[in-house]
């Protein structure tokens, strides 16, 4: 590298660094804060990448010398509660498809952080429509397919992008994960049996680890015993030898990480609820095509739903899905988000903005549709203190539109992440 090129590159880095601590003013004819009602002629003041003030433009003094951008409609940056962008790439070839490992049925140890490519073009694609946060990672398809992470749709490295890891452990009950570990699981009954066995192992593992740690603390070490134990247990592990798989599942059992179970049929939803009751983990339902049949049960058990994309294909186990499910879940009082999901072919990713729009056209109110891809998605991810609404102290993630964001013919005209304009133009 020549010295001038080096200087240029260095200069660029400096700029980026400055941009991280961004000050900005965003004005909107309508500002949907998702915390209270919409503001007409509103303004959002951003300082150091955080929201410093939100309110009516007439009530707030604008800081001097700060860049101002404007749009007809301003919303919080959209939150996609479950996708696979960056893990399953645009090209859908071997080199960019890391969303599903098929070597075993249960592999919760697989971290999405080790597979996420923030440079994938699909990340940029969704960002162009106002999506600033995605819960991405291992796709459905194995009994336990791995972990997810929550990322901002920006940054050149995963470390810059990630805001929560692990976010979830993901499992699938139903035809989606049949034979994901060779012959087994071959039936729904076997799927649940395998999950139960594994969770029981994780419980025992956690107890043994605790005991071993207690022993260590007490200064009593029986090295030979533990060696024997780990040999005997093989993959199961135990004693003080670490087992990543059971470690992750014990975090699930401790409630540190939710278990997100992909289910579509009502009967499979009930299996998930039964498991949750037995083991007490934090359950999030994923896809849930027939959730409208058991909405009251979900409400009673306070189980949130990351609903399938509204335009998901109504075939196979999802044959009974409905455009109206979101509206029905809302009516039943179930906390839900609408996801982009995983797509194996074309389109390679869906866009939650469009999925929420179709739900809004089928009985869901505008505000509730927007909530399903902002604040309610943030709540399900446990990140509502940081993202999902325009409130003082939160990350300055915003999306700008030239008209009703849900309308087909409107455009996203800007995306802001941590106070920095990351997408411009008309999309």
């Amino acid at each position, binding site marked *: 590298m020549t010295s001038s090129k080096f200087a240029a590159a260095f200069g660029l880095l400096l700029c980026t660094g400055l941009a991280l601590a961004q000050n900005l003013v965003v004005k909107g004819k309508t500002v949907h804060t998702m915390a209270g009602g919409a503001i007409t002629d509103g303004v959002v003041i951003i300082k150091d990448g955080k929201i410093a003030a939100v309110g009516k433009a007439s009530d707030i003094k604008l800081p001097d010398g700060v860049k101002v951008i404007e749009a007809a409609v301003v919303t919080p940056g959209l939150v996609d509660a479950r996708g696979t962008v960056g893990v399953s790439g645009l090209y859908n070839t071997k080199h960019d498809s890391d969303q599903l490992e098929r070597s075993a049925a249960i592999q919760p140890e697989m971290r999405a952080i080790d597979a996420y490519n923030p440079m994938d073009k699909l990340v940029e694609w969704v960002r162009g429509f106002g999506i600033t946060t995605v819960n991405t990672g291992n796709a459905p398809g194995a009994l336990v397919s791995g972990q997810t992470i929550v990322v901002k749709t920006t940054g050149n490295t995963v470390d810059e992008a990630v805001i929560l890891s692990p976010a979830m452990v993901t499992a699938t009950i139903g035809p989606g994960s049949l034979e994901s570990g060779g012959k087994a699981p071959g039936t729904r009954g076997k799927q649940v049996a395998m999950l139960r066995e594994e969770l029981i192992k994780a419980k025992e593992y956690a107890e043994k680890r605790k005991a071993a740690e207690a022993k260590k603390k007490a200064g009593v070490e029986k090295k030979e015993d533990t060696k024997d134990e780990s040999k005997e247990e093989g993959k199961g592990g135990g004693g003080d030898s670490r087992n990543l798989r059971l470690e992750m599942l014990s975090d699930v059992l401790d409630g540190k990480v939710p278990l997100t179970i992909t289910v579509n049929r009502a009967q499979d939803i009930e299996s998930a609820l039964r498991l949750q009751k037995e083991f007490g983990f934090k359950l999030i339902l994923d896809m849930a095509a027939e959730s409208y049949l058991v909405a009251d049960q979900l409400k009673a058990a306070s189980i949130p739903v990351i609903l399938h994309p509204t335009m998901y294909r109504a075939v196979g186990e999802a044959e*009974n899905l409905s455009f109206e499910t979101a509206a029905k879940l809302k009516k039943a009082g179930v906390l839900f988000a609408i996801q982009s999901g995983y797509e194996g072919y074309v389109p390679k990713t869906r866009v939650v903005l469009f999925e929420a729009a179709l739900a809004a056209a089928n009985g869901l109110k505008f505000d509730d549709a927007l909530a399903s891809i902002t604040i309610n998605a943030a709540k399900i991810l446990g990140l509502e203190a940081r993202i999902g609404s325009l409130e003082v102290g939160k990350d300055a993630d915003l999306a700008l539109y030239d008209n009703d964001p849900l309308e*087909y013919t409107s455009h996203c005209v800007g995306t802001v992440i941590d106070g920095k304009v990351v997408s411009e133009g008309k999309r």
Partner: protein
Amino acid sequence: MPMKISSCFVLAGTGVWMALASGVACAQDKPTAFVGARIIPIESAGKASPEIERGVVIVKDGKIVSIASLEKGADYNAPDGTTVIDCKGKTIMPGIVDTHSHVGGIGAADGSGTIQPSVRVSDSLNPFDSGFRRVVAGGLTTINVMPGSGHLMGGQTIYMKMRMKDGKPAKRMEDLAVFIDDDGVAGGMKMANGTNPMRDPPFSGTRGKSAAMVREQYIKAQEYGVKVKEYQDKLAKAKADGKSEEEINKIKPPARDLGYEAMDEVLSGKRIVHHHTHRADDIATVMRLSKEFGFRVVLHHVSEAWKVADEIAAAQKEGKVLGCSVIVVDSPGGKLEAAEMSFATAATLEKAGVRVAFHTDDWITDSRIFLRSAALGVRAGMSRAGALRAMTLSGAEMLDLQKRVGSLEPGKDADLIILSGDPLSVYTHVEQTWVEGNKVFDRSNADDLLHAVGGFGAGRDQEPYFCCFGNQ
């Protein structure tokens, strides 16, 4: 229900299909007037027609009788006994034409070879498939059901009208098929290039081989055509010369070859090629082959058509390339050759002067939300008029059906849809779909609504049998 419906509908009594049956009788016997809607005729006597703010459409015996404006105090004349349907506040446009669909649980060519022109998708079609209920829920009235793209030539497509037979859902393929006069079921020929049909032998493994295999078959088809022509000429001459029956019987036709027969229909222009193609160079290859053999072709999907829009326009002027049927999906990619797919493709083609239609590729996209494709086209810069024409008349032109469908003009099939609002709005629903003067979908019927929005019992839709997809 927002619509004031005629007395004969009131008589219809219970049950969805009873109501429809009654509708049939009305439509066939007496005129029906759709009154008070915003009307989007698309075209009138060969010229783009402006939208009518408030108007009336009168249909009779399955055909459109008249379209008129009711603005400035104008009234309309309808014969006694006309069934009046109040459509105030609604929008009426022609039934939508889908140039590329896979509904019906179809399966055409199999794994035995890559060029299978004799295979007819019509022989694999299940009229009971719930996909057809969703088609009418989306306002689609004419569709081209195609074999998949896993073959260089995947078989014969079928052009269908979403009719109800005697007011009941169709039971036979023949109830739904479009027939060309005496010539049987109308359809095109499905072809594909690029990566979908590429795989191990006997399929092609490279683009060069793909084109070579297609050329070889077209040359054989040409030669077969020559033999048939020679036979016909000999026979005609013998008859004209007054030869004896014995001598005439000695003149034998060439052994029939169903594949070459179908390809000769392609070569004569009677059967249009519907060509799956994505990459700009693949599009150019299709145009090159069309020029060499003189077949008429519609370019389908065309992910990279925006790169060669002027070249496509030039080929269209030469007469054999009929235009582009564009698919709109939510993101690019999914395979390498669709990596540069753009929402702006339709707009770019329109500006270059290329005839543009859209298609669902159902089940790639859902027929129920097909109007969204036009709306996203407009989002990316297409004109409103162009986008609405792309959903209707331009598609009809790509199926040689423009004299029958695609616009609201007197004499054309009474295929129309009643919308709750603007066709390009996400909030708009298709409220009713009419085909040849019969109502085939009504959102106010519980069973129709179930298929329109989904829900328990919406039915088992069959995935198309897409044999032989190759390298992605």
